[in-house]
């Protein structure tokens, strides 16, 4: 599923391709689950959020219109709405692990940080495998440049230049997405 665009995968989901749903799960489940842990506060409800979101993607994929928004934006909205539903159901004021108030029922993602995270996840998924690997090892596994060099059997100097190239590619992909969707609005 490497480098197959989200929008292609969601069309396959609409036709009943479970493998395509698995591909989207690989790209976004960690963020949806992390969002649940952060905003809903417990593992059980976070797992429920993940199940609700991907079930919704499966059921509603045929209605997804790539001309109106990216898949990242679409799945972000589903996540936000389902999280709001779960909060409303609990009828309790929910706080983040840091004690900061969460978005309340009916309230949007006020800072836009959550929406932005989905956009970055989409951009990351479109990098080449080599670029994505070096960034995932650094940011999601917390490895130093030397540790990445050892893990991937790649010269340290190459890891450093590859990390620079990967960040540059990510920035360019994010800019392309921003221009693409703002031009369509």
């Amino acid at each position, binding site marked *: 599923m490497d480098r197959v665009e989200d929008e292609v995968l969601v069309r396959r989901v609409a036709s009943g391709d*479970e493998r395509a749903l698995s591909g989207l799960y690989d790209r976004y489940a960690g963020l949806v689950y992390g969002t649940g842990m952060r905003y809903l506060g417990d593992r059980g409800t976070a797992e429920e959020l993940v199940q609700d979101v991907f079930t919704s993607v499966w059921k509603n994929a045929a209605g997804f219109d790539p001309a109106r928004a990216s898949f990242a934006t679409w799945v972000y909205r589903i996540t936000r709405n389902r999280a709001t539903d779960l909060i409303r159901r609990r009828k309790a004021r929910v706080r983040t692990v840091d004690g900061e108030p969460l978005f309340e029922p009916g309230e949007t993602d006020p800072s836009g940080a959550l929406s932005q995270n989905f956009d970055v996840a989409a951009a990351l998924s479109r990098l080449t495998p080599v670029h994505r690997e070096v960034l995932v090892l650094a940011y999601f596994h917390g490895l130093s440049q030397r540790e990445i060099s050892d893990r991937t059997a790649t010269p340290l100097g190459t890891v450093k230049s590859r990390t620079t190239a990967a960040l540059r590619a990510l920035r360019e992909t994010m800019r392309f997405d921003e221009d693409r969707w703002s031009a369509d609005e």
Partner: protein
Amino acid sequence: MSEHPDTRNLLGPYVMGNLEPYEEREVEVHLQGCVSCRQEAQELRLAHERLADLAYSTEAPPEDLEARVMARIPRREAGRRLPIWVAAAAAAFCVLAVLGVFVTPDLFGAGAAATLSPTGRAPDAGGQVSIRGTGENMEMRLEAWGLPACKSEQYYELWLVEGDERVSAGSFTVGQSGRVDVRLNVPRFAGSYPKVGVTAEYDKDPRASDAKMLSGELHEL
């Protein structure tokens, strides 16, 4: 300026705070006198901050959660996976020889088509592929010409292709005329592949060959 390229390659780990102290000093000295590298560092820092935010907000879900999600989704009749279809198509043909083609669009219902271009293996070959239909299954028609006649235990195979991934759409043989006109049943989502291709295959080798004969990009009709 001779140090410029080397320093530029360090800007990524620099904005991440992952350089050795001596390297960090070298970069900072360079940045004081290089406007373009300062701008580059600013751009990379933005990507770094966005990625750090994403990593902070991401948490690995329990390993069995994906299986639970998949178990919960309602099944659709059209949700059969391609290998089942591929196996059925291959069995129906009982072929000796196959071609390979690559199709490329994302279409459902309306249909798609591709013009096939030859490779060096069959420079006079050509062909067309079309996918039509409105139901859960569609008809994929392949018309090709100029292909070498199949020898014993040889056949051609038609592929749906996307990046390094390819899925068989069926197989066929070609006689002395070098022409073929076959119709295959394919699922609706076959049209989501961007390319089609035809390869030459051998009956006794279960692996897909790299002997590309024709290829083309699918376009929505």
